[in-house]
């Protein structure tokens, strides 16, 4: 072993370069997608998505009630639909997507953005 001449430092350089480039290529989508926030950040984001959709749903229901005098059914429906939208947003945020949904759609939202 020790008699062997030292390995040529440039040997396999092209290979190593190609490997490094491939690694960068692989990293890019993840980098552009899920922000490196860790689990606390993920939890924070899920909570905000849930609350935001629910608030929008209830607000829409309230407006419908005001306009159509259907109290309280607008708010009830808005609450349910808002909760559903919130869950949908959370599923998209964590990369689940709609079960059976179109793949390109799932990919777009699936990166946790």
């Amino acid at each position, binding site marked *: 072993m020790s008699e062997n001449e030292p390995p040529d430092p440039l040997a396999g350089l092209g290979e190593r370069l190609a490997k490094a480039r491939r690694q960068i290529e692989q990293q890019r989508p993840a980098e552009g997608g899920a922000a490196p926030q860790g689990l606390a950040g993920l939890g924070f984001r899920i909570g905000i998505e849930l609350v935001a*959709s629910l608030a929008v749903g209830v607000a829409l229901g309230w407006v419908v009630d005001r306009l159509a005098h259907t109290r309280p059914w607008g708010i009830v429906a808005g609450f349910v639909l808002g909760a559903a*939208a919130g869950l949908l947003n959370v599923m998209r945020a964590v990369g689940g997507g709609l079960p059976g949904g*179109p793949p390109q759609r799932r990919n777009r939202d699936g990166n946790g953005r």
Partner: protein
Amino acid sequence: MTVKGGPLAQFEIERLVPIHIGGYDISYTNAALLMTIAVALIALLLLGTTRRAALVPTRLQSMAELSYEFVAGMVNENVGHGGEEFFPLVFSIFMFILLGNLLGLIPFGYAFTSQVIVTTALALSVFLLATIVAFWKHGIRFATFFFPPGAPVILAPILVPIELISYLSRPVSLSLRLFANMMAGHTVMAVFAGFTAVLGIFGFLPIAVTAAVFALEIVIAVLQAYVFAILTCLYLHDSIHMH
């Protein structure tokens, strides 16, 4: 009104130059002052370094170039074809929020991004722009965005409202995320710093925690500016390409 010296007192808006016009209070406040400083700093950084741009950049010039290239790459990657015209908008939003977050970490600074009205105004402008662009590019066909392709038509009465609410919740979650992150971080820091005087000889413990939280806050400040900008890109992408 908040408790004086309490952890929430830092978010108090002070009127530096009271201005009242037609019953509206449009006073120049400490938040507005920090916004002015942020815009001035951005302009100084970008204009000052590119006016006499050197081939071998100085530190400041490379900072300006790095931020430019970072946002340009983000727009290219996430908005895709047809997104170049939105680069100035995304860049301005990114720099404005970044400076706002970072200036809030400097003593006597004020994180204007911790005011929900500021983040709401930013998020609503982005949302309205994205919606207008969508109708501009696709016309009424944009309405099909609210029905997932391939779903049974009979489910439309349920799916369309859900998708609509999901779409309308974008500006809410966009503004809430930035505001809540900034406010929570600053409050946590103030709470821990407040323990220092009470604990006497053990006061070094909360100081250590505050230092750690401060480091985390710097990360969050940059990250939230990035998240806001990238979500702006994605919403514009949806408007231009519809899926």
